[in-house]
């Protein structure tokens, strides 16, 4: 990118300082919104921009804001800064290095939905980051950008940070709300969805950090300008977190619709010498494994095209896997992760991830037979589509897709039949 929309600190390091951010028209969008626009107008601009949620599902942001129940008050904004997906590390960089643009996004969202108290839910490991954000928030209060009766209007806004206690499930929006309420982090039944029944039972917008960081520039430069980036159905730029067997891992802000090939080989510097690309996980550990053939590499990374190669864009944490990796090792890792993180609320995920972990352990250590691979596939299939929240499904994506698409990795791991075990009878 010639110039960044989100990772603007890469163009100007000083943007993390409030005076610098303000000099570059920072918070002018917020001031204009509060003093000149009504909330619906702000929502309309975001709706027109086509901005889609960057947390993974890609739901149209403006539409979500419109869903807020106008007959039930107060309204809340809860920012999902739990960033727990393995391979995802974009929100952290945004909040660390371009914090005011993120906070302005939170403030614009709050104004658009008539919220006076916005919450930022950060994963527990972000305690130092939360501390920094608190300092930024204090500065905004001093500059009268937060607080009561902003810019002489009746509008008031406070932002609160809240730390989780270390649970992947709290990145699921309703589990996050439960945790924010001080309860055990377990997902709620949906429907009702947060815009009608959210935090403390009140209408709540839950947005990802990156989603909101887009909003100030959309307001400043307009929906049409924003649609100049990306594709028609997936406008804008996206931060791709690139990791795995690649020379230059890191965050790359690129227009949606950029191909895997461009990201991995042009920006990411390709693979180590002598290695060839085997697979791609485009959405972290919750992702299906894409066979990295030419078709896949030339696929555009956006919400519509990634499904064509059998995966989802998700939070766009692109994990590159080279030919040194055996898939039985890889899924053993992902399944361990999900077994550790399953909240336990629903049966298939709680019991199934534990069972899968036992089987992948056996397979990886050469203690399994082919029936175990089939059993693993069966268990994963039985979890899929039957859980309370999406995380159960996530736990199975890598498993079923790798058994389907990288069958030979498993065939070489397991002997043809189970070694006979001696049965001792004792009376």
């Amino acid at each position, binding site marked *: 990118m010639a110039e960044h929309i989100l990772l603007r600190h890469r163009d100007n390091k000083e943007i993390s300082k409030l005076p610098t951010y303000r000099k570059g028209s920072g918070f002018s969008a917020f001031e204009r919104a509060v003093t000149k626009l009504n909330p619906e107008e702000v929502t309309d601009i975001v709706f027109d921009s086509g901005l889609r949620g960057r947390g993974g599902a890609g739901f149209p942001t403006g539409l979500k804001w419109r869903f807020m129940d106008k007959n039930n008050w107060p309204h809340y904004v809860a920012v999902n800064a739990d960033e727990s997906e393995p391979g995802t590390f974009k929100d952290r960089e945004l909040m660390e290095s371009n914090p005011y643009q993120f906070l302005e996004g939170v403030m614009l969202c709050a104004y658009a939905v008539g919220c006076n108290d916005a919450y930022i839910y950060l994963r527990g490991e972000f305690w130092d980051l939360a501390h920094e954000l608190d300092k930024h928030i204090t500065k905004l209060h001093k500059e009268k950008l937060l607080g009561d009766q902003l810019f002489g209007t009746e509008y008031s806004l406070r932002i609160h940070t809240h730390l989780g206690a270390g*649970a992947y*499930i709290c990145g699921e929006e309703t589990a996050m709300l439960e945790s924010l309420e001080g309860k*055990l*982090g*377990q997902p709620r*039944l949906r429907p009702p969805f947060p815009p009608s029944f959210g935090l403390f039972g009140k209408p709540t917008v839950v947005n990802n950090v990156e989603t909101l960081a887009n909003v100030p520039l959309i307001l400043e430069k307009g929906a049409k300008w924003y649609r100049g980036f990306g594709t028609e159905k997936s406008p804008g730029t996206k931060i791709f977190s690139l990791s795995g067997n690649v020379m230059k891992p890191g965050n790359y802000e690129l227009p949606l619709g950029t191909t895997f090939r461009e990201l991995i080989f042009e920006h990411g510097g390709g693979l180590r010498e002598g290695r060839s690309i085997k697979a791609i996980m485009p959405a972290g550990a919750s992702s299906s494994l894409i066979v990295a053939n030419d078709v896949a590499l030339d696929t555009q990374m956006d919400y519509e095209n990634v499904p064509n190669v059998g995966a989802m864009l998700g939070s766009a944490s692109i994990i590159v896997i080279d030919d040194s990796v055996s898939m039985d090792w890889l899924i053993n890792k992902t399944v361990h992760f999900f*077994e*550790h*993180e*399953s*909240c*336990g*609320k*629903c*049966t*298939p995920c*709680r*019991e*199934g*991830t*534990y*069972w899968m972990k*036992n089987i992948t352990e056996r397979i990886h250590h050469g203690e399994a037979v082919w029936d175990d691979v089939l*059993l693993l596939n069966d268990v994963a299939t*039985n979890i899929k*589509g*039957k*859980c*309370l929240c999406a995380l159960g499904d996530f736990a199975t994506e890598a498993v079923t897709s790798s058994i389907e698409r990288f069958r030979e990795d498993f065939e070489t791991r397991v002997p043809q039949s189970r070694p006979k075990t001696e049965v001792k009878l004792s009376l």
Partner: protein
Amino acid sequence: MTEKIAVAVAENLINLTIDNREVSVPAGTLVVNAAKLAGIDIPVFCYHPKMEPVGMCRMCLVEIGRPAIDRASGKPLLNKDGSPQINFGPKLETGCTVPVSKGMVVRGYTEEVTEARKEVIEFLLTSHPLDCPICDKGGECPLQNLTMEHGPGQSRFIFDEKIDLAKNVPLGDLIFLDRERCIQCARCTRFQDEIVDDPVIGFSQRGRALEIITFSDPGFDSYWSGNTTDICPVGALTTTDFRFEARPWELQSHASICNHCSVGCNTTLNTRREAKSGGDEVIKRVMPRQNEQVNEIWICDKGRFAHHYTESPDRLTQPLIRKGDALEPATWDEALQLVGDKFKKSKGKFAALAGGRLTNEDFFNIQQVTAKLGGKALLDSQMAGGEMVAQVGVGQGTNLSDLRAGDVVLVIASDLEEEAPLHWLRIKQAAERGAQLIVANPRRTKLDQVAHRLIRYEYGQEAAVVHAMLDSFSPKRPDQPASVKQLLRDESVKAAAEDVQSATNLIVFYGSEGLDVAGSHTLASACANLLIATGHVGRSNNGLVAVWDKGNAQGAWDAGFATSVNLADDLAAAPNLYIVGADPVGDRPDLAETFEAAEFVVVQELFLTKTAQMADVVLPVLPYTEREGTYTNAERRVQRFYPAISPRPGARADFAIAAQIGLALGLELESKLASLAFEQLAARLPAYKDLTYGKLAETFEQWPIIGREDLYYGGTTYDNTQGLGVQPPSGAERGESPALSFEALTDPEKRKGLLAVPVTRLYDLGLTVTTSEILATHWEQPHIVLSPADAEKLGLELGAQATIKLNNMQSPVAARIDNRVPKGVVLVPRSVGLHIFGPAPIEVGA
């Protein structure tokens, strides 16, 4: 069919198809319930019809299809044959979380659904220990039953990979947790949160490590804990009372009625004849029996665990006759002869004192004997007002579950959860449904948490509060004391009076907090006046409810008994005493003198109580578990209980003994069959006119459907096939027009020192509680409760030993400090050995 359905007929019904059957249910019904109503089983573990759905266990996954709608026209799309086109979603849906909708098609029999059920069972069994042969739930276990019906039959899980978890975790001293068996359905935690508002247990950790823990100290500190074992769909939660005691299939079931308090919970007594009890039949456990008009499907822990007195080896089995200083065994003939002779000669100098746990048949026969002898029939109780309840008590068809927005409930002078736990629960639920709840009490109680309006008064002003409410909307009486005038200015009293005036239905509960018998009478009369003046008598869901101290106090009043305002004088005036099911000397040591001086004392009892020890004749009786009879509860519902175990030889039922005594007096009373005794009673008492044992045994379909084969659906609470009881018309409904009877009030006396007030505790030191060893740590020891200010003044610290002087008795007590207690007042629990019968001056020393 059920109340819900009956209501729905008038409202909008939704038509849908479940398993190819047309079903019509009220809007808002969940798919699992719609199926249940149609007699179709959708298996569940976490869903319980009394609680909000959570969709956790995934057992109820079904295919749900909805009519396709043409977006442009908004009209349903049709197939070629004209039938509506049905769209099925890509995933199965949980029937417990989806409400029915018009034209919905539910399929619970397809291969996909069958597979899903098999899979969920398979998943659950990967962590379940399958120790059914040693599990208390085995035989009545939802998991066991549903595994047999839907499970895979063979395990693909390697047994060695099962996790070993703790199997004997005491959550409290009444409930044990087996962590291996728990399937994390959260029924127990949700029951404690949602239903009884004691959130003392919850989940800790996550995933497979998810575990039920207790947050309270002592553990699982709740009066409701036993219910969690009924709704637990596995053997994870068991009671200390029943665990490892018997297998469910060995148990006999007998319908009974709990008589600890006046709610009259329907119970089932499970019994077994067993070697370890010497071949005797014994009660193994007390289970709730469904009566949606009384206790729904719940009972409190006192009702569940305090039953062991009935099997005590200390029970009397032989009549005793005084010979000099000693009571010596005698035959029934000798004893009855002596009693008959002596009573015949009593010449009007006679009184009967009966306890509130006797049956209606007992009261009737005793009253007949007493009337024949021209004596007084006295009820041993701390409360009065039963004659008013008989007149203006809640009308026929009253069901606390019907109360909703627009209705008003006033609870005055009662710590309801301690005095009548199920009333507390059902009023809490009424308040949550929108009924306006007014709680008037001098101190904060648990009911306050759901009250819409609180009235705080000083002890002694109970009736004044009600008079002030009356005065605020009717011509003021000039002779009201200052306290009424002062309360008239109280905003909460004024607002409560407005609530009462605009109420659709009004029920007033009065309790015994801080009152003696006279105070109780004054309060009852004030409450009756309030109801009469506002026209809330003589119809269902309106009227007066006394929170009686015993299970059948109302039955006593109906049979002609009354509480004595001055028991010592009344007993002294009638030197021939017939004491039945009461221990006045044990309760009040100062009455010993009266009994010393009495001419002839007959005591009918289970045990050799303090009073019995002073008697001339002691006659052994049968507990309610070994005989049959009827009780009338606080809501005036007459309910029937059945014998659970064979009568212990030597003892007789109270009504039978009274009838046999009556024989000597020329009375023809029924002495054999309780049902015939009841017929005689019904013929004589207008309130019980036309009632028969047959009518009391009638049942009708209740919702939710529980018990039966599908234990999984509502838990192991028993289905009610033995009778829901009958609420006969009140006096007001029978056309007796109750008159306003105004009792002039006086202000409470000005006092200098501390005032002791009696309060009721669920687990007192009454004989029924102290014979149940498993409740030992719950027994209330002699204690007082005072305000932090008074404690500081007296130099008392929390838990310190103090000495009190109360009603001429000095006692050592533990001092508790509670900021809910008003200054200048000391709470003294009843029935823990302290000398408290009403408000009284008290001296407290360190």
